[in-house]
């Protein structure tokens, strides 16, 4: 064939009109950093409006109370990016707390290891069912939600038995402070850092995006789909166990009524942070902003003495609805360009 000498006509320029790319970039910015922008606005307004808000004590409090949701949200971000969902994290969080408190009688190592082992196993089992049998993540993790809560109730004699943390070393994990902030805050921050590295700069992270973006394509491109899915659910399990244990250490006991509905806060934080519920796009920096935003809204409503905390859920719900509508709009705009 003689056309070897043919210089291929360049393609691509025509595909990206300059105007569209600006709109696209703006959309991208909003998608990625919308939560951070709103967070800054809310913080600025709250600092001006309430004297108590900007105080060190209040901010430290805000940070600690958000840190547990934040740890769960790290794992949830991975799960949602694959196009899945994990409803069981709230129950696993509660289960992890009770197990940690019970195991603390055998030392701090046992108090950490037991919840990690049990919740890790639950996560692994869920991941296996989702990846290998093709069952819907919603159903599998709904079963996990019920199962983990049942297990927790069984361990605590229907919730009548509250285990106290026996190891003071272990209690220190939750209560100890460094520079005025409790340790769980640092744990959450470190996990966010590691998570972001894993998500953006590792093959595992690439595979997560690929599966959520198009599972069939990912499979054709040789992505180990099942292994990656199992790993993300294992990750959420481990993180839920860890967060539960830290919370037990902080409260010095395994409180059985915790974690009900917590999975929804976690999911809301992730989605508000710009991760697409349909999978394929998202970031941990966004998730961090989303979780902090929810925490800040709660904190601000607490500052307004006349409103009960129930209104926090109203505001969070409204916010979530707005974010999802904006996401849909943005993805439509981007598809058109």
């Amino acid at each position, binding site marked *: 064939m003689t056309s070897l000498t*043919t*210089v291929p006509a360049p393609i691509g320029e025509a*595909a990206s009109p300059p105007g569209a790319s600006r709109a696209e970039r703006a959309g991208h910015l909003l998608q990625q950093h919308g939560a951070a922008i709103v967070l800054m606005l809310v913080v600025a307004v709250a600092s001006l409006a309430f004297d108590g808000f900007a105080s060190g004590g209040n901010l430290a409090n805000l940070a600690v109370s958000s840190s547990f949701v934040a740890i769960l949200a790290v794992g949830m971000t991975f799960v949602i990016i694959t196009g899945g969902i994990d409803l069981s994290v709230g129950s696993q969080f509660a289960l992890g707390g009770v197990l940690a408190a019970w195991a603390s009688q055998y030392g701090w190592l046992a108090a950490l290891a037991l919840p990690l082992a049990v919740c890790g196993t639950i996560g692994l089992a869920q991941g296996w069912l989702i990846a290998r049998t093709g069952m819907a993540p919603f159903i599998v993790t709904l079963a996990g939600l019920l199962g983990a809560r049942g297990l927790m109730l069984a361990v605590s004699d229907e919730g009548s038995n509250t285990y106290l943390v026996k190891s003071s070393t272990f209690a220190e994990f939750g209560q100890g402070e460094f520079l005025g902030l409790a340790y769980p805050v640092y744990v959450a921050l470190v996990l966010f850092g590691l998570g972001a590295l894993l998500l953006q*700069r590792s093959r595992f992270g*690439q595979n997560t*995006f690929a599966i959520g973006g198009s599972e069939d394509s990912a499979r054709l491109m*040789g992505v180990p789909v099942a292994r990656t899915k199992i790993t993300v659910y294992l990750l959420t399990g481990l993180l839920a166990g860890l967060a539960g244990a830290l919370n037990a250490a902080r409260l010095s006991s395994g409180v059985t009524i915790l974690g009900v509905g917590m999975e929804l806060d976690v999911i809301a934080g992730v989605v508000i942070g710009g991760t697409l519920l349909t999978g394929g796009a998202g970031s941990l920096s966004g998730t961090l902003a989303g979780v902090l935003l929810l925490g800040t809204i709660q904190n601000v409503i607490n500052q307004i003495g006349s409103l009960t905390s129930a209104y926090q859920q109203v505001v969070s719900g409204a916010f979530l609805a707005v974010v999802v509508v904006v996401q849909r709009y943005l993805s439509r705009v981007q598809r058109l360009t």
Partner: protein
Amino acid sequence: MSPSDPAVPDEPLIEATGIVKRFPGVLALDDVSFDLRPGEAHALVGENGAGKSTLLKVLTGVYRPDAGSLRVCGEPAAFSGPMDAQNAGVQAIHQEIGLVPLMSVARNLLLGREPRTRLGLLDMRALHRRAAELLEPYGVRVDVRRPLRSFGVGTQQMVALARAVSVDARVVVMDEPTSSLEPREVETLFGVIDRLRAQGIAVVYVSHRMDELFRVCDRVTVLRDGRLVHTGALADLDRLRLVSLMLGRDAAEVRAHGLTKFSGDHERADDAPVLEARGLTRRHQLHGVSVTVRPGEVVGLGGLLGSGRSETAKAIAGALPTDGGTVVIAGTELRRPTTARSTRAGVALLPEDRKAEGIVPTLSIRDNIALAALPALSRAGLVSEARIDRIVETFMTRLRIKASSVQQRVGELSGGNQQKVLLARWLATGPKVLLLDEPTRGIDVGAKAEVQTLIDELAQEGLGVLLISSDLEELVEGSDRVVVLRDGAVAGELTGDQVTEQGVMAAIATAPATPPTTEPAAGPGAGEGPARPAEDAPSPGED
């Protein structure tokens, strides 16, 4: 790039022998053999249900054959999945690209093979540089950090191709690679194919566009009804011969009388057309298609798979947005046709895929029939049950629908009766024009004859019918006139004595000297002869 292996030049890269693949109720491949030599471009052609896509899936590891052997580079191969095939050097470029649209071009290109730093993290700079290098030979100069979906289909396809070839491909399977490319991009693709071949990579090329086949390919394999019909050098065939092989009609001896249940020609009323579609245009699919149908007339729409037949019908019915063209129904122009508007104007479309686009299998016959007519049957949003019952009864008898009762669920009926239910639904709206897309596909012989008789009767009652059929015999005997489409444009119109199977095939095979369309871009007709050397035409001319 893949190392070409000059050691054994004539050993086939792929040798499939006696492949059999069965699906419930269908023998998709029956003792099919196929071989692929290094550096050749091999056309794989066939009509709907020929087994083409099944064969592709066997070659690319998606399906496992029930019998027969597959050898890759002389080694026996049993692919357990697409990954296995890819590892053996068989890469496929699918119509639906097969990449992840939300990820960046660079990440798509190098997914699974990303350059990493000493810490095991992705080396982003190297990733982007490497991606740009990989795309260079394909003439794609884009910002590789942007998501794939922000680029056009042509670019996406080149990215897919670059990825496939860079993963050490020895065989590249291209399934309809030009279906959504601009002419300029098609040229680039052909250049790339030539370069692949020079490297000893073999290309399996699937396309319905004759010009492309003759331009790009050396050899051709024709499948029909799951069987191997022909394999050999493309230069030995002319277009007509190739078309007749695909359609299963011997060009020399087309039977004079058929076995279908159509009566002779209908009385050709010289009334004003009930349907007049002019210059229907849709990017990549339709290029100025015009069709007219008069009351009482059956107009056939012929052409190969992918020639734009279904798209024409859908465009008329408002089910497919068009970029240009007008549809006039009984003298009234449809402005911005939607399915609701065209139904009101009197257009009824029986879609090709009745399961997906037509019947509601879980509803009863009665409810299925009443569905489209509901707006007409209801008054102020209330539906008269008695009127529905009356209409349903009428059509049950008239169309001879065989069912235990009107309450039977449509999903339980045979294909032929489902088709009649669908027909009844549309007739209940009192249409002026019927668009029938493959009305007898997948239904048994007896029911087929009944449906054909029905079409005949309906036309005699004054309906205008547009009939699409891949069954050449059905098309020719059922139609008073046949409009033949080719690559989304009208290739010819046959009337009276010209309406023969041979006439249809000839119209498909030969490109018209002057394109009958309003497309100014159309090139200098694509020659009438057999194979032409690849380098001659400056542009493929095609739409």
